[in-house]
């Protein structure tokens, strides 16, 4: 059982290689009582026993197997993606943005983005530059308080991002899984301070919609409040499911923040610009 902050996930498996992978990326989380409440419970079990020539691992939850099995050595990517999918289905007490979230002095920076926009790389790089890590995948917004809650899972880095983040002296990554459905994948482990602070919320202050483009000059454009609200809704896992609650939460969030779109081709320049924007607007 892992306490991720805004949610708990319970996992069991008889597969030793999966346990070793979990130990590498979750060792700073501590162990919770496995009989306690969990938002999501999963089991990673051997695939079909007759497929001896190609051993597989399958993720089960509540009596169903929502995904095709993976090769037996790829338990961690299956657990991470499957766990994210299940959390996105279940955590409807909150508005779930598809966003990286970081904080300084409990004031939050939100990085909502579509897949492939460089969100994870930017989130990890900002974290290694001194920002508190709240999430790489889920911006968990409490509609009652308006606060962002940490949901601290390892960040899935893909392809070139593995080398870019992995070269940082403080970066700790799990094993590289080559040739998955999303290319090569490795999991970045948030620094211990952020894990220890995983029950500490942050007030939203700045929203940046990042877009990495190879060779692009840095270009930062303000976004109108109403446009920002629309884009936040589009970047949410459960906005429509929440109906009026989601609508009110997005309007409140857009009013409480400033929003920008940032296109960049150089990570260091993007970080410096975000630092300056945050100092000015947060």
């Amino acid at each position: 059982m892992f306490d991720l902050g805004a949610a708990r996930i319970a996992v069991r498996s008889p597969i030793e290689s999966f346990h070793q992978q979990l130990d590498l990326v979750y060792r700073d989380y501590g162990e919770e009582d496995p009989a306690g409440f969990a938002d999501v419970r999963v089991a990673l079990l051997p695939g079909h026993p007759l497929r001896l020539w190609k051993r597989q691992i399958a993720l089960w939850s509540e009596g169903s197997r929502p995904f095709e099995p993976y090769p037996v050595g790829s338990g961690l990517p299956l657990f991470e993606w499957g766990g994210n999918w299940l959390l996105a289905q279940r955590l409807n007490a909150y508005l779930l943005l598809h966003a990286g979230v970081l904080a300084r002095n409990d004031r939050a920076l939100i990085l909502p983005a579509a897949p492939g926009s460089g969100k994870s790389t930017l989130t990890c790089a900002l974290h290694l530059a001194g920002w508190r890590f709240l999430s790489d995948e889920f911006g968990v917004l409490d509609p009652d308080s308006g606060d962002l809650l940490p949901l601290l899972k390892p960040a899935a880095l893909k392809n070139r991002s593995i080398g870019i983040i992995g070269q940082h002296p403080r970066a700790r990554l799990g094993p590289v899984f080559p040739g998955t459905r999303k290319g090569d994948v490795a999991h970045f482990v948030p620094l211990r301070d952020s894990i220890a602070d995983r029950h500490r919320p942050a007030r939203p202050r700045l929203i940046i919609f990042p877009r990495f483009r190879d060779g692009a000059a840095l270009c930062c454009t303000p976004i109108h409040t109403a446009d920002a609200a629309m884009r936040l809704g589009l970047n949410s896992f459960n906005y429509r499911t929440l109906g009026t609650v989601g609508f009110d939460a997005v309007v409140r969030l857009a009013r409480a923040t400033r929003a920008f779109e940032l296109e960049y081709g150089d990570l260091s320049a993007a970080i410096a610009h975000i630092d300056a924007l945050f100092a000015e607007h947060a």
Partner: protein
Amino acid sequence: MRAGNGALAWLQEHCPSLDGQFLFLDPLWLDTHLLSEGAVLILREAAAAIDDGRLSAFEHEIADMGGWPPGLERLVRSLATLPVCAPVGTRGTA
């Protein structure tokens, strides 16, 4: 007397102004629309007509003026699905 909920009340709650533009939450499909001030003015008139039970007459007025602006008719139809409840104390007793 206008009821405490209904189309106008929905607009009041779910069509806020954000720095001069308006976000409207469709009460039927729960999708969100970005609207201009002019579009919201028409929606308000339509909502008042819905709450007063004179939507058909309002639609005739719109037709006489050349028809609905693009996209607004669907939003008005959604508003027309909202239940209108009379305020407490206005209903007769058996």
